[in-house]
């Protein structure tokens, strides 16, 4: 199953998106945003807080920076606001809503801003749990017909588990892509190739890149 086909309108799978000038500007503007308190533009402040927790649960701080330390949350929020097509925007809003509803119910809490990382972790883990091929195919079908209905302007309701799964996996793809394309990770963490460049077709992994994946 190719989730990218199922969610064709979901550009969050940034791996497929080349770094266009728009995106580069976005990344730069994320970096320049030095206000101590971040105010999201696409999500509400409460949702923004959940987004930050989720991003750092997906990629926590280790000997390398966490997702939010390289402003992944700001990038995703701005990307959804400025680049995403309408279909993706409404899908991610809906997914975030469903996710927060369930997290509040699971934890007996009232508002999203009360949700801490420890409240969100079990639900994130459950939502991202590896699926069997059969199950993935069923989810794919469900998403396809949901997207089709939405595209045709018909009323559609998505199964809650499917919504959370789609939201969580899309978010994870977005977090990973945004993390790997951030300036710091791209230049300092991954193996960064500058010009003048050259090409070696087949060599020792450790010698060529120190065992790391190439940046970009």
């Amino acid at each position: 199953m190719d989730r990218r086909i199922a969610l064709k309108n979901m550009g969050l799978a940034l791996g497929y998106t080349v770094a266009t000038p728009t995106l580069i500007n976005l990344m730069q503007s994320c970096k320049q945003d030095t206000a101590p308190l971040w105010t999201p533009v696409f999500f509400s402040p409460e949702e923004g807080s959940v987004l930050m927790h989720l991003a750092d649960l997906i990629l926590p701080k280790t000997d390398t920076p966490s997702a939010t330390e390289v402003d992944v949350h700001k990038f995703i929020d701005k990307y959804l606001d400025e680049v995403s097509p309408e279909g993706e925007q409404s899908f991610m809003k809906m997914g975030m809503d469903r996710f927060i509803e369930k997290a509040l119910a699971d934890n007996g809490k009232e508002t999203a801003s009360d949700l801490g990382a420890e409240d969100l972790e079990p639900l994130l883990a459950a939502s991202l749990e590896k699926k069997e091929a059969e199950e993935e195919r069923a989810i794919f079908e469900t998403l396809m017909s949901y997207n089709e209905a939405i595209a045709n302007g018909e009323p559609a309701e998505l199964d809650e588990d499917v919504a959370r799964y789609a939201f969580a996996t899309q978010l994870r793809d977005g977090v990973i892509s945004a993390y790997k394309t951030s300036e710091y990770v791209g230049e300092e963490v991954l193996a960064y190739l500058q010009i003048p460049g050259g090409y070696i077709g087949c060599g020792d992994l450790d010698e060529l890149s120190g065992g790391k994946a190439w940046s970009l």
Partner: protein
Amino acid sequence: MMELNCVEQHLREKVAENFDGRVITAGRVAHITSDKKFEGANRQTCQYRNRCIRGCPFGAYFSSNSSTLPMAEATGNMTLRPDSIVHEVMYDPDTGKATGVKVIDRLTKEKYEFTAKVIFLCASTVASTAILLQSKSDRFPDGMGNDSGQLGRNIMDHHLGVGAAGRLDDYEDKYYRGRKANGVYIPRFRNLGGKSNTDKFIRGYGYQGGGSRGNWQDTIKELSHGRQLKEAILKPGGWRMGISGFGEVLPYEDNRMYLDYDKLDQWGLPTVTFDAEFKENEWNMREDMKEQAVDMLEKAGFKDVTPYDNPGALGLGIHEMGTARMGRDPKTSVLNGYNQVHAVKNVYVTDGSFMTSSSCVNPSLTYMAFTARAAEHAVQELKKGNI
């Protein structure tokens, strides 16, 4: 030469062992990879960024912007007029020659006429054919050069989107450095005589493909989030390789484009309608393209080899050609052997529209070679006073 990476070399060796006479070689791209100097705008060697699609700032990838336009400008004889929509070639019935072209400025919509002794239409297949179809006169009521009725017919492309991909659980301690702009090419091996012949279809196909190390999803789906996932995304994933066929499409008279005067564009010009489809030979060929792709990858030890077949429609290959075909007989063709319109010798058509068959290889270099040949012919004919 851009060398093959580890899995591409692997496939080359295994295919050579298992398939008589099948070759896997480097994909064909027009990049400078040596110290040799080329004319143009300060062209440099390839930096292996594989950002060719954006337009190469080093001029390493051949393009008219880096190469032929600067060379033409350097002669001092070039006037470039952008935003010009040529929509008609003007014709003088007294001399039997074209006299120039009519142009609409794309931005201002002002109309201009330019006169010339010789005219080269090289606007791309569909556009050049549309210009000729719009060039109506008493002599050519169905479009300039359309005495045969073949103008706009026999449209071809390459059919693609069929092949297979798989993973190779090997070479985990190997990698590549830099991003080359190509992968591999597998030249046509069908219907070349002897054992290569098949009775299922005529003509043949080639493959383009490539291998690379993927990302974490390939191998470690179990990692949903957290520390281990983070470690995994920073390392190269498993090797994958795919090959994708490019097949010859036959010329069919009823595969055609025509003008729609009921649906005009914003400049008041007729729009183009395509009426074309793949037929039996293409469909039969695709079966073989899929089967052979799977067979080669599996015999080379690839795992989870998955075939695919997404035919799309003619045009997806963006190798459209054949709508003003060349031929000896003016009754059945539009252009003569030097790309001249049979009945209007000072009009040359030098894009893909002159092609009579599509072969299965990328066509740009063929178009360029024919264009250079036609230009040389035009110079000689002008000197002789023949056109």
